[in-house]
Structures are given as C-alpha cells and as structure tokens.
C-alpha cells in the first residue's frame, strides 16, 4: 500500500485545502498523473502522483483543510492484493482542520519539518462500501452534484447503506470552504515569511550600477520585426544574466535548511510578480540556466498571466532556488530586497534611467540600472557576493552571449 501524503507545494506551505479529486477509487495511476487539486494560500495547485498503482481509497474530502503530510489517499502497488475491507475503516474525513494562514505560515520554514504532521482525518462512523466499486449515490444526488460541482468520491452518505443523497450533496456544497480572501491570506503569508527572514537570516547588501547601452541596443535589434506581443523585455536579460552568474557562483543558488546550505544544480529562478489585489508571489522559471532569452521571455509572460489568474502549477511554486525582483517599471532607483527564505539570495533591479556616465574619460549619457544583491551571510560573504554581482553586470555587457 502506497500512502499519498499532502506534499508541501512550496517552502512556506503547512496545510492545504482539497478542492477536488481527479481520480476515483479503482483508477489506475501513473507517475505524473494529477491526483487532486489543492488550494494553498498562493494558488490552486495540482498534486501529482510519484508512484504507479491503483487507487484504493480517498481519505480526505473536498473542502477539508489538512496539514502537509496527511495521508490523502492510498494506492495499491501493481500486483498488490486488495486488503479485506474492515468495518469502520476510515474512508472519508471528518470536519476539516481549522487553522489560519498566519498561524501556519509562522511554522518552521522547511518543507521537511512540516511533513511530520500527523493525520487528523477522523474515521467515518459507517462502514464504507468496498473501494473500487461504484459508490452508492442516488441518481438525484449524482445529478445535483454535477450541477453544484461537488465531488462525490469522498462524500459521506446518510441514506440507507450509506447512499449519498441530494441532501448530502447540498450540505457538502454549503460547507465547501467559504470563498477565501486570498489577498489577505497572501498578505499574512508575506508578513510571516518576511518577518521570519528578517529575524533569522543575516542579510548583507551590495549594490552596483550596471551600464545597459549594449543590452538596450541588442534588445532594439532583437525586437525589430517582432510583433509587440513577442517583444523581449530587459527583465528577460536580467533573468538570464542572473542564471548564468548563479551557475558560476553556487553559494547564491540553493536553500539553507536545517542549519546547512544545500546548493542546487538547477537554477530555478523565482520572479517576484505583483498581484492586482495587492501582495506578490514569486513563482519560478525552472532551469533558467538552460533556456534562451526568448524562452525565458515566453516563460515570464506565461508566468505573470497565470500568477495573476491563480493557476500556477505545483513545480512553479515549489522551491525556487534564487529570486529576482524587478521594480524597473516603478520609478525607483534601487531596491534592497528581503531574501525569500530558505533561499539564500535575491537580486533587485531598479529603474533603467539615462544617467551621466564616464566612458573612456568622457561624460556620456548612458542607460544605467542599479542592481542590488541581498545575500545570506551564513552561506556567503561580501567578497563572493561582489563577484556574483559583477558577473551579472558582465553578462549584461554581452547580451549576444546570453
């Protein structure tokens, strides 16, 4: 029997609310199949299977909020015999676990530490029908469930022999997680994460002014003939430059977990994206080190749209290894960002502005951006930080190599 536990779909996630099951008892499951959709404080995310098997039972009801690590479902491995159903075996959950986002977000940062949470799913009082068979759902309940968008699989039935009735469906619909105030939840999450970072992470800051004449000229050339919707933005060059620099300076890319730095081979580049209702998310462009500028641009546009629509995928929210924040659209010269722990560095870019610049002994007008690195002093020092920042600047002088 394989236990499918609620994964931490991001470093700051301690609980999730099941929105819907995408599988039913008896369904075959392959690695990578979407099992369920779970709501977090950030977005509705897909939960994928890491195993091959067949669904034995579903143990969490839609609408239920459970801690990370809760067994959500059980799969039978290939060839595994179905166990004899035990009367009173837990099939469907009891009332959801209450818990505000602020409280949960204040729990330890790491995903690993959150996994130990015990299941709080209560056992149903009535024996469930043999999993794998069709659940006894009345015809009327089935139709009403479709109308209300209620998933039947984990619904407890109150009719004779546990049949699910219309009333059960309507009650489940009424008890569905009330419309969440996502922006206030995000606000609380940001508050908790940033407070923790400022309290626990010894930041140091380095700034540099980076001339962008070459980068801007290259962009103008690259965008000639491109439709407006496909035009490259300077942000794509920043991301690409940071990704390349991070490969050269591994102490900037990874996580500080359980008292130790764990560098990451992949550069999953978080990009701070502001939300229309306030707040921000920093989903990742995975493997930014192996993408072209055009691919980065495309991924960025896609990510911005889906972040604001609340339809991020799990791997995008899960564990960026390094984050970039670009406030260039605002008229700020520089930003001293706060590290998104357990990451160990963040690079902020300000407005690109024409400034007097000394070139070959002459003052010229130069487009310049001020880049600022905030890095975790437990992992790196000012010296390595400075070299990292310099590498970013150097890459931006050779946009054609990015």
């Amino acid at each position: 029997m394989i236990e499918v536990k609620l994964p931490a779909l991001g470093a700051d996630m301690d609980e999730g609310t099941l929105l819907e099951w995408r599988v039913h008892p008896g369904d075959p499951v392959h690695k990578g199949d979407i099992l369920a959709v779970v709501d977090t404080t950030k977005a509705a995310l897909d939960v994928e299977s890491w195993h091959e098997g067949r669904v034995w039972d579903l143990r969490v009801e839609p609408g239920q909020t459970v801690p990370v690590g809760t067994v959500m479902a059980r799969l039978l491995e290939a060839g595994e015999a179905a166990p004899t159903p035990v009367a009173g075996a837990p099939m469907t959950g009891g009332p959801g676990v209450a818990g505000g986002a602020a409280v949960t977000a204040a729990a330890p940062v790491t995903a690993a530490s959150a996994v130990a949470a015990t299941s709080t799913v209560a056992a149903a009082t009535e024996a469930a029908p043999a999993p794998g068979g069709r659940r006894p759902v009345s015809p009327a309940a089935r139709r009403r469930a479709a109308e209300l968008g209620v998933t039947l699989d984990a619904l407890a039935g109150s009719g004779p022999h546990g049949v699910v009735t219309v009333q059960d469906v309507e009650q489940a619909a009424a008890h569905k997680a009330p419309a969440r105030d996502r922006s206030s939840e995000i606000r609380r999450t940001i508050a908790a994460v940033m407070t923790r970072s400022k309290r626990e992470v010894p930041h140091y800051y380095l700034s540099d002014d980076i001339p962008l004449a070459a980068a801007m000229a290259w962009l103008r050339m690259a965008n000639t003939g491109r439709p407006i919707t496909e035009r490259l933005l300077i942000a794509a060059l920043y991301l690409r430059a940071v990704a390349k620099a991070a490969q050269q300076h591994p102490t900037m890319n990874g996580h500080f977990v359980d008292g130790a730095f764990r560098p990451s081979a992949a550069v999953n580049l978080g990009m701070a994206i502001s939300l229309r209702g306030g707040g921000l998310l920093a989903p990742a462009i995975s493997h930014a080190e192996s993408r072209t500028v055009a691919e980065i641009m495309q991924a960025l546009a896609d990510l911005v749209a889906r972040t604001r629509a609340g339809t991020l995928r799990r791997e995008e929210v899960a564990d960026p290894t390094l984050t970039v924040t670009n406030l260039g659209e605002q008229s700020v010269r520089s930003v001293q960002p706060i590290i998104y722990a357990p990451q160990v560095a963040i690079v902020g870019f300000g407005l690109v502005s024409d400034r007097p610049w000394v070139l070959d002994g002459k003052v010229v007008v130069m487009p310049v951006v001020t880049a600022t690195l905030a890095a975790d002093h437990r992992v790196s020092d000012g010296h390595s930080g400075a070299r990292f920042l310099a590498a970013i600047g150097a890459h931006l002088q050779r946009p054609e190599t990015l």
Partner: protein
Amino acid sequence: MSATVTYRDALREALREAMQRDPRVFLMGEDVGSYGGSYAVSKGLLEEFGPQRIRDTPLSELGFVGAGIGAALGGLRPIVEIMTVNFSLLALDQLVNTAAALRHMSGGQFHVPLVVRMATGAGRQLAAQHSHSFEGWFAHVPGLRVLAPATLRDARGMLWPALEDPDPVIIFEHAQLYNLSGSPGDPGPVDLTQASTARAGRDLTLITYGGMLPRTLAAAEALATEGIEAEVIDLRVLRPLDDATIMHSVARTRRAILVEEAWRSGGFAAEVSARILEQAFYELDAPVQRVCGEEVPIPYARQLEEAALPSVPRIVAAARGLIGKRPA
C-alpha cells in the same frame, strides 16, 4: 339525512341521483333488487324506481355484462353491478374483447357507454374466491377507464361523470370501504383524470389507491410521530394514469413507496414503479419500493387474511428503510 354518511350511502345517493337525472340509466346485477345488493348499496332503490330500472339478473356474469353492452349500444346508460371482482373474470371476454374494443374495431362508429361497478379486495373473511384485487388487470386494457374511489367524495361524485363517458368505465369499490363514514361534503361530480394528494409531506411519497388508502394514511400519521413526513397520493384513476401528480411529488420527496393490496408480481404497483423510473429516475434518492399483498390466495382465517395484506407496520418499516439516518 344525518350529519355523517357511509361510503355505501354515498354510492346509493349517486345511483339515485343518476336514475333521477337520466331516464336511460338503469341498474342490473345479482341481488341488486329485492335483496338490496350484496353490500346493500342499492337497498330501497327497487321500491323507488321499480323492476324495470333495478333489475335482478341470473348468476351469469358473461350473460348480463353482455346484455349491458347491448343496452349501451342500443342507447341506454346501463350500470352493471358485479358482486365481486373474482366473478368479473367470468365476464372478461365481454369486457375486454367487446366493450373495450368495439370503438376501435368499428372505426369509431360504435361506442359502449357502460358503467360496471364491482366490489374488490379482502378483509371481510370472504376467502380466496371473493377477496382478490384485479384492478391492475383491467387497468392493463386500452379502451377502459378504471376508477377506484377511496373517499366519500369520490364514492358520491364519480358515478355521474362515469355515465357521461361515452366509453366503458369500471368502478372498483373496496369491500372494506363500504362502512367508511364521515361528512358527506360536496355532492357534485368529480374529476376523472387526476390523482389526488391525500396528505402532503416532504420526506417520501406513499402511492396507493382504493382500500389501502386508510391504512396508508394511518402509516403516514405513525411516521409523522418519528419526524418523517410522508406524502400520500390517492391514485383514484388507474387508467388513464395521472403521471404528472406522481412525478411532481416524487421530484420533491425523492423517494416513493407503492402500497397495493394485490400481489406484487406483475401488479399495478409495478406499472407505477416503472413509470417513476422512466420519468423521474434522476429525481430519486432511493430505489422505488413496493408494499404489496403476500403472494397467496387470500386466506379465510382472520389472522392469516390480515397477515397477507399490507399493514401499517409494513408500510412504516418500508418508509424507515428508505429514509436512512438523515443528515442533521
């Protein structure tokens, strides 16, 4: 007339009114004259209307039902009483092959404005040859209208519109209802197309007719003490069946139980159940149930006879079984 009347009185008043209103109307059957009818429905009518219009017949259902058909074809409005539904089997040929078929076989040239009344059902210790319920057999036949008055109002009001129907009408009077008494109420004619809601309820629908109506209502009262509000539908008209009233009720309560005195296999309850499944499947929260008579010839012994019939406890138990534990 006293403040209360019996079902028997209501039937007699309906006969008297019909005889008075239309000189073409006459009554014939076994013992309807001097004896006053085997259930005393026609008591006193011979004296009032004379032997031309209140006619005793020989013990020959095939013969006198056939004579009734002839009289109807000849322009009269005969009311033929058959002592009990068991004996009506002797007249099935006349009723099914002639009365019900003639309009169709003649291309609409002939119709048979015949009314046949008969007693049906058990409960009076009359044993297996006088106690069965074959209403469903007649309701099977196109060309017949089949009525089952279960209330004083219907006993009083169904006869006149039945006589006005240009085609044959069968009226089933349940033997246990003759002594039912109550306020006479409105003596006017009643509708012959619709079922009636005898009791409103939200939790399940009990569908019945005729002699089972009183005990179905009693079962609904018993269920009410447990917090289960049963709706009771009195079908009244078995053919043509009023599907709409049934489906509207089931769509609200989502559960249906048919209560029928007749045997379960191939019974009229099966027909109603099938229609619910055809028309209201997606409204249901539970399988349709039937509470029917036991599949034995109705016994003579009182306890055995009662045990063979749907009882209040059986109806209540079936209802409980459909409700489940109910969400709080």
